[in-house]
């Protein structure tokens, strides 16, 4: 199972994008995407946690008893998330305030445990870390795309900067979570169409984010 870095990147960011193709991490994609700054910090936090928890789980993969592996994974993930939370509070108090409880909720993001279960458990440390890292990057990109439309149409700003040449009636709905449903739905529809001819089976259902 040797995968080139390029394959890891294209698999995680495009072919098997966690949000658009695997429908994971949807809860946070709905919650934090009304501002681009928040989405970026959330994405960076998740990327860090996924990369390092995948690395740690991969390093310990031969030691972890199979029956309690999920508890151990949760413990490792939670430790990294708490660390990120403390770090942001100490060094970026403003952002910590605006993200509020969402940082702690990275723990519940299915992407991290998904990568741990699907990849880090049976692969060597460095590929696992890269896999986790690029899974996080793929998630961040989708969040930023959604946040771009929501912030632009809902607030008339991009990364908090006023876009003065664009004067139009702001869409309040874009600020609220339902807008993310429409946008994610549209993006999933577009990507599913692109991949549709290659897939013989219809898309799987029943997964949760």
């Amino acid at each position: 199972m040797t995968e080139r870095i390029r394959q890891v990147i294209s698999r995680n960011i495009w072919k098997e994008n966690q949000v658009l193709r695997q429908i994971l991490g949807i809860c946070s994609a709905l919650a934090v995407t009304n501002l681009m700054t928040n989405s970026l910090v959330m994405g960076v936090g998740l990327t860090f946690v996924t990369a390092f928890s995948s690395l740690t789980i991969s390093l310990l993969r031969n030691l972890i008893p199979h029956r309690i592996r999920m508890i151990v994974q949760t413990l490792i993930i939670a430790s990294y998330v708490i660390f990120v939370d403390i770090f942001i509070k100490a060094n970026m108090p403003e952002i910590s305030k605006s993200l509020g409880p969402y940082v702690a909720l990275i723990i519940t993001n299915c992407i991290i445990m998904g990568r741990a279960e699907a990849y880090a458990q049976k692969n060597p440390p460095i590929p696992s870390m890269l896999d986790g890292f690029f899974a996080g990057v793929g998630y961040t990109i989708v969040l930023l795309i959604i946040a771009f439309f929501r912030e632009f149409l809902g607030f008339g700003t991009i990364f908090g900067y006023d876009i003065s040449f664009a004067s139009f009636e702001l869409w309040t709905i874009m600020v609220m979570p339902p807008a993310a449903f429409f946008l994610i739905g549209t993006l999933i529809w577009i990507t599913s169409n692109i991949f549709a001819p290659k897939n013989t089976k219809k898309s799987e259902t029943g997964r949760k984010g």
Partner: protein
Amino acid sequence: MKGGPVYTVIFMLVISAVFTLVLSLANAYYLPRIEENELLDDRRAVLYVFELDAEGGPEEVLELFENAVVSEMLADMEIYAHLDEDEQVLAYAVPFTGAGLWGTMRGYLGITPELDRITGLVFTEHNETPGLGARIDEREYLEQFRGLEITGELAYGPAGDDRLDAITGATSTSNAVLRILNNLIDRKIAELEVVLDD
């Protein structure tokens, strides 16, 4: 041995101990800085309700606070008082706590010594929806309260005070703010009035 109950228990104990230790060390290392940030935030909030410059660097803020503000225990509350050069009280900052839409809101209400006019309002903690209710932190909303006379219940215009606008799309949060403030004025500020009269 791997997979046996003894190994499983020992493994879990060891790994829990290791991760807890690492996190405790990180917490101990960052705690002073987190507390410093919190204190600074609190100081800035108090300066803001007194209409003083709260935007400066950490040292300026702490120095200004030191020179112009004293804390007093009045009516069972720790209240900050803004003093002029002759030690006359220019305004009080009364802390408040109340239920917002999603969680507890905390902040300060600045009020004149006669307790008849608001000098400023600020929130130090809340869990309102980012982009909607969380806009109570924006200057446009907070500045509306400056100089507002306390004649009866605070209410949004046009039914109430014409100068006071709620936030579009965040009705519950906007109403929660006024409920907390009216409650504060009815109870705590009334108690404060009694104490100050004595």
